[in-house]
């Protein structure tokens, strides 16, 4: 569309932005991560991850992020399928419904969950009212997963909904026409065709779930530490930037790994090779 020269000019502001606010901070983080307090190169801080507390937090973070991602995926597919089936002409209202929660401050909505799940929260009060046993819900892994799913589900629904609504209805009818029942239609046609959407959804849910510290702080009650909480503590309480940065670098490696994994297998090719 543009010639090379104009393109370069138009690109310049973005390049400056990316350099100043993305690339340079990244260098600093990596730099802090691999040096000690005297500024000498050292992998000591990175090595800290193998200490119990940190390793447990990392393990728990990856675990909960994975569970949340899978939960989002399992919730989003049927939801999007129903939405595209029922409301082919009313997509704007539907998409609005899913973007709306994004407008609400996530801190606020997570705090709302806190009051719902607390020992004397809404659910337990309701149970007491009915003379039913109360539950221990707050400060559990389940509460954190719930918070993650609630906060990040729209990031799964949106890309999935978009790629699902791009499938022409006649493609699905063709599958049915050729003998496919609903399950076969889903696994042989819908799933492969929406894989790109699912993959961006997975990335968009997994990364914030892996790095969150707000949700785990509010719904985990400081007892269940995720790697995000530990990094936050290193910066705000311990003032140990070196450890904080080292942990961030490790987190980044996990994120890059996730992105490599999700993009490595070409969805189109994968879908075609089903034998």
């Amino acid at each position, binding site marked *: 569309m543009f010639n090379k020269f104009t393109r370069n000019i138009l690109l310049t502001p973005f390049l400056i932005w990316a350099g100043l606010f993305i690339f340079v901070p990244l260098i600093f983080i990596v730099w802090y991560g691999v040096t000690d307090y005297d500024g000498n190169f050292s992998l000591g801080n990175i090595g800290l991850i193998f200490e119990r507390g940190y390793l447990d937090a990392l393990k728990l973070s990856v675990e909960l992020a994975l569970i949340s991602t899978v939960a989002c995926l399992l919730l989003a597919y049927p939801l999007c399928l129903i939405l595209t089936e029922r409301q082919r002409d009313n997509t704007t209202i539907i998409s609005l419904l899913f973007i709306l929660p994004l407008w609400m401050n996530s801190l606020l909505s997570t705090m709302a969950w806190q009051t719902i799940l607390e020992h004397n929260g809404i659910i337990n009060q309701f149970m007491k009212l009915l003379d039913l046993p109360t539950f221990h819900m707050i400060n559990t892994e389940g509460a954190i997963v719930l918070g993650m799913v609630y906060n990040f589900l729209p990031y799964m629904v949106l890309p999935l909904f978009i790629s699902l609504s791009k499938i022409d209805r006649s*493609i699905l*009818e*063709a*599958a*049915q*026409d*050729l*003998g496919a029942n609903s399950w076969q239609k889903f696994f042989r046609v819908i799933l492969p065709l929406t894989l790109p959407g699912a993959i961006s959804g997975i990335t968009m849910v997994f990364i914030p779930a892996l790095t969150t510290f707000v949700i785990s702080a509010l719904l985990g009650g400081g007892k269940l530490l995720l790697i995000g909480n530990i990094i936050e503590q290193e910066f705000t309480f311990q003032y140990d930037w070196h450890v904080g940065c080292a942990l961030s670098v490790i987190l980044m490696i996990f994120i890059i790994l996730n992105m490599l994994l999700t993009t490595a297998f070409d969805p189109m090719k994968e*879908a075609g090779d089903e034998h």
Partner: protein
Amino acid sequence: MKRELIHLENIAKSFGNLLVLDEIDLSIYESEFITLLGPSGCGKTTMLRIIGGFEMPDTGRVIFDGKDITNLPPNRRPINTVFQKYSLFSHMNVEENISFGPKIAGKSADYIRDKVKYALKLVNLEGYEKHDVTRLSGGQQQRIAIARAVVNEPKVLLLDEPLSALDLKLRRNMRRELVRINKETGITFIFVTHDQEEALSMSDRVVVMNQGYIQQVGTPENVYNEPENAFVADFIGDSNIIDGVMVRDKVVRIFGREYPCVDSGFPEECPVDVQIRPEDIKLAAPLEGAFNGVVTRVVFWGMSYDINVEADGFEWLVQSTTGRTVGEKVSLHVAPENIQIMSKPQSEDEEVAKDN
């Protein structure tokens, strides 16, 4: 006697307040090439989708081989569809597209390989197994769509305007191909088009539809030469349609003059529609023919001229291999056997149809 394969029994279908099909009663025979022909929006696609199982009729039944299949879902009908937009699976190559049906039916790998080969041969695309369907031309995609349907050995193939996206030359080619495939496989073809030339040149039988009603069912020659009403006459080929009155058997009055014809069986003084094909009208010197008039327009089409002649306040369309000049005085002559008498439409719907 041909065997009846599908029977549509008194089918009606509405979308909201819109009545799309009504009083549809139609027999479709084994191995025939039958075409649903009609203007845009007359309900052809809806009728096809009811046969395919993609729509439920409001009333009536779909009988297949003596069994009621009205409530059977599409995946359980021995019927396959070639969709207008081809609707190939973009995430699969040619071979995978074609083997989709047999795989679901649980056929063996050997069987599938042979069948894919056979199907590709049938549509003249041998050796295309590994091609990416999104890279194929429109005509090739259409052939793959046909192969993908035919490979399942359906009893019936539904085709919804499958040629409309192709250019004229390719379309002519594909018409021949489709007829050949129909004869070679013995599969019943139910073909939808709004192109009368397509319908006449391909079909064993044509179903002419308008505004949700079947207007006439017959062989191409039958619907062309003996249209049952003004709509059919007008829609298929060019026609002069004139208000007339049947004086008695074999005599019709048009423009105040009694004229011999070959139709009989109408009540005396019964109002009728009179159809005369433009190619059946001979131009003669003034006063020699039955109607005198003046040439108002001449259009050259290559093989023939379209000549408009105004006579008795009626604008006649005449086709002739020799040209005339505008303003020339001529007379028109029609042989009695070329005058087709049709009853006036009964229902309002048909009347509306005539005005269109």
